[in-house]
């Protein structure tokens, strides 16, 4: 039994019909003589009513078969088997040199070891293996510069490689431990790809002296500019690329 006059809590309980029959009636009687309180209570009731009406439509969504319990049971049953399969895939991926979540980890670990190893890693994953689609694609050099400028305001201009037949075709954003990085892929008429890579220098990746490093079938040329580290990644030992290296002053 509630006491009169009803407390704030009692009034809410009245609105929500959570009082006993007797209390509910008692509050009604009270409200009949208290127009101010009654107006407040009525406003709450109306808000609740509006909410119920507005949200009733959300119950009429077309069914989503993925949410059917039978389907979910089936998925749960296969889960343990799939879990093992995932573990195998992950081991394989680590063996191959990084994939998805491990890719980032791998990059971080490598970046401590060798300068701009993440640039090479990114080239392998995105330019050579095509594991992830590009974030940005274009035929137009100017718009590629615009895309890059959205993320790296003070970065070096994209190098003009058209003399050697290379044009920027796609861009991809990546994350490193120190923040966002980007890779722009250039391609020539024969489908050869080289990449321009920008990343923030981190505690383990300070500004770099100009240098060059060979890693397997790839060659990385790296340097630092205002605020960022840069790398060009080029497949070594191909004639076109040898020509490119001669025409350009890295």
């Amino acid at each position, binding site marked *: 039994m509630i006491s009169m006059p009803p407390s704030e809590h009692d009034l809410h309980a009245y609105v929500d019909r*959570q009082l006993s029959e007797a209390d509910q009636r008692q509050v009604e009687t009270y409200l009949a003589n208290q127009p101010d309180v009654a107006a407040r209570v009525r406003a709450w009731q109306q*808000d*609740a009513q*509006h909410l119920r009406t507005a949200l009733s439509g959300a119950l009429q969504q077309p069914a*989503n078969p993925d949410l059917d319990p039978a389907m979910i049971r089936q998925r749960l049953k296969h889960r343990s088997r799939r879990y093992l399969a995932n573990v195998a895939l992950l081991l394989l991926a680590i063996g191959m040199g990084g994939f998805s979540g491990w890719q980032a980890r791998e990059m971080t670990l490598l970046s401590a070891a060798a300068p701009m190893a993440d640039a090479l890693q990114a080239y392998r994953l995105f330019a050579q293996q095509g594991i992830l689609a590009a974030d940005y694609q274009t035929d137009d050099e100017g718009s590629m510069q615009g895309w890059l400028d959205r*993320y790296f305001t003070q970065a070096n201009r994209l190098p003009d490689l058209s003399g050697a037949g290379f044009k920027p075709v796609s861009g991809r954003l990546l994350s490193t431990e120190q923040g966002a990085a980007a890779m722009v892929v250039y391609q020539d008429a024969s489908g050869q790809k080289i990449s321009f890579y920008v990343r923030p220098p981190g505690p383990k990746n300070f500004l770099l002296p100009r240098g060059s490093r060979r890693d397997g079938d790839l060659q990385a040329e790296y340097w630092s500019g205002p605020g960022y580290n840069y790398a060009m990644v080029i497949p070594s030992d191909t004639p076109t690329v040898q020509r490119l290296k001669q025409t350009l002053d890295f």
Partner: protein
Amino acid sequence: MNELDDQLRELIPRLRRFAVSLTRNPSNADDLVQTCLERALSKWSDKRPEGDLRAWLFSILYRQFLDAHRRSRRYSRMLEFFTGRDDAHPSAERSVIAQSSLQAFDQLTTEQRALLMWVSVEGLSYQQVADILGVPTGTVMSRLSRARQALRQLSEGEITRPALRILK
């Protein structure tokens, strides 16, 4: 088992609606419902819920939303930087939540939305809500009172603005 599946099927539209009110995005909402059902079905065998199945499911869904929300907030700033726009409020939300009373509702905090959803829309008892949130019923009532006042103020804002425009 089949009896449970039927009960679950009946509740799915309510779970989806609740999930939309939390995530404000239909496809995220369905992902949330799916994880909730997976969890419910895998827990069912060893930990049968006491009492109302609906309140139990709401509670699972709510906790999973909070967990996911906490996790995603860590990435949202970075995402914003990458995409150059605020992905936390996708345009799909507008199509689901169009009406003006929902616009006010939408501006409430997560817990306030959940509270009004449970009490005003789904008609759960204060005790059930207290169990979900793990707080005494008195606390539920105080928070509910604040949620109602907030909704009131927000919807009054919605109503007075166009009225002023007409007078101009």
